């Protein structure tokens, strides 16, 4: 469903991603691991043409991604939940979630708010609160709900567990697995938390300074114990 070939990304003169190759099948879930600054978030933004300048070839479904603006790419069925959540503070939770429906594809009606709440029950009691009234964990759930309402084919979660209490991280892991099962959705999770990534994805890509240094299954990753020390330990 997603093919990326020799992707390079730049912020101004800074060369952030170096020749990334990546494949993702329909219904598959992958993790992008790496330290801060490895290029994980830049990769997700590059897919959506949302800031970095890119070179290389990207394909999503039958569509080649070249000059399409961000909103057009989103409407192909790619949804990004950014690392900093970016909840609109003066809109209610329900209104925040409804904003995500702009991304709905022509052939696919978005979920209703009730259907989103079925998938993410934690959001239900929050619907009438304003964005600025939410805790970090609540913001994360609302951001995921907002990213999900358009029924994206690909949901991209940028460091979803960052800054959350362990008990919330466990709930989030269950939620992401429930989302994966619903409609066979593909998921990309960027993470530094290896356990969380392992619980929510099928395989992984390991990034270091903008390059892929390992890709494979979790079993293969576990057999290369030095990868953690070399590319993930600070």
């Amino acid at each position: 469903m997603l093919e990326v070939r020799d992707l390079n990304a730049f912020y101004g003169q800074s060369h952030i991603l170096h020749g990334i190759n990546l494949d993702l099948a329909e219904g598959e879930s992958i993790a992008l691991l790496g330290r801060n600054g490895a290029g994980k978030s830049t990769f997700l933004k590059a897919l959506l043409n949302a800031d970095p300048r890119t070179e290389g070839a990207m394909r999503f479904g039958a569509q080649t991604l070249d000059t399409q603006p961000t909103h057009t790419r989103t409407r192909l069925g790619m949804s990004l939940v950014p690392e900093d959540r970016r909840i609109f503070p003066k809109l209610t939770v329900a209104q925040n979630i409804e904003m995500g429906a702009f991304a709905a594809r022509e052939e696919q009606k978005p979920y209703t708010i009730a259907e989103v709440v079925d998938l993410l029950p934690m959001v239900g009691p929050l619907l009438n609160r304003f964005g600025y009234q939410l805790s970090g964990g609540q913001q994360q759930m609302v951001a995921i709900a907002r990213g999900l309402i358009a029924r994206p084919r690909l949901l991209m979660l940028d460091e979803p567990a960052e800054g959350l209490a362990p008990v919330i991280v466990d709930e989030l892991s269950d939620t992401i697995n429930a989302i994966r099962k619903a409609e066979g959705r593909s998921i990309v999770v960027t993470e530094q938390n290896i356990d969380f990534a392992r619980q929510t994805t099928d395989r992984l890509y390991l990034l270091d300074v903008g390059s892929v240094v390992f890709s494979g299954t979790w079993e293969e990753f576990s057999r290369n114990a030095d990868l953690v020390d070399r590319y993930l330990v600070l």
Partner: protein
Amino acid sequence: MTGELITIAFNALIWSMATFLIASGLTLVFGILHVLNFSHGGFFMIGAYVAYTVLEQFGATVPLWAYLMAAIVAAAAMGTAGAAVDQVVFRRLKNFEGVYVLIATYALLLVCDGFVKLVWGLNYHSVSPPESLLGVLFAGGAILPHFSIFVVLAGLLTFLVLEAVLNHTSVGRTLQAIAADPWMAQVLGINVSSVYRWTMIVGFALAGLAGGLLVANQSLSPDLAGIFILQAFGVVIVGGMGSIRGAFIAAILLGFVEAISATYLPSYPGVLFFATIAAVLILRPEGLLGRATT
């Protein structure tokens, strides 16, 4: 005494609503696009001249429907100009620092000034109010011209429509989302560029509408832009940059300041107006309903 107080209050409301009519487009564009449009007064002026040209066809007595139609023609013309300005100027400058945009809008103001001199000349022109609004209302010893009441109602109606659209419709919520975080809005599938364009069109159309509605109150000359834009900027700053509700409240506040000043301090025009702006900025730099920035 009662008559004097009513006159002060009424003059305050006339000033307030006339200024709000102009400030509404200015603050809308700033609120969504974060562009401080110096040329807004210029397009208000051209709107007034466009309405004058339409109304010239009706001779000395202008029916109310023609007056309203002239205002709508002025709004449509300035909305079209807004689309052109967005395409030719603002889109080209979207990746530049705000100061370049500011300079560009000042250049546009000069273009408006030159355009008016070229098309309508340097002579003063005037338009009579519609014939059905030539009368006056007597209230507690005060004399309230019908046309002034019309201006107050037009300002109030404009505020109510903008408030309703911005706070009670999905369009308004989308605008709020874009104003708060345009990057996230585009990631959610919103065509932010298109919304920017339409905001510019509506902002310029509001300038044209204000020009058309207020044309009978003015002596039309190329100085018109400068006279009103200063008041409008005062209202936008005191209300809080980008807040329609703030601009409305600030317009009423500054309207009363102006009316009191004109009655009791006629030898010091503008002093209380600027003192009030300074006081608000000292006590609340972000304006009455503005968002504090860090």
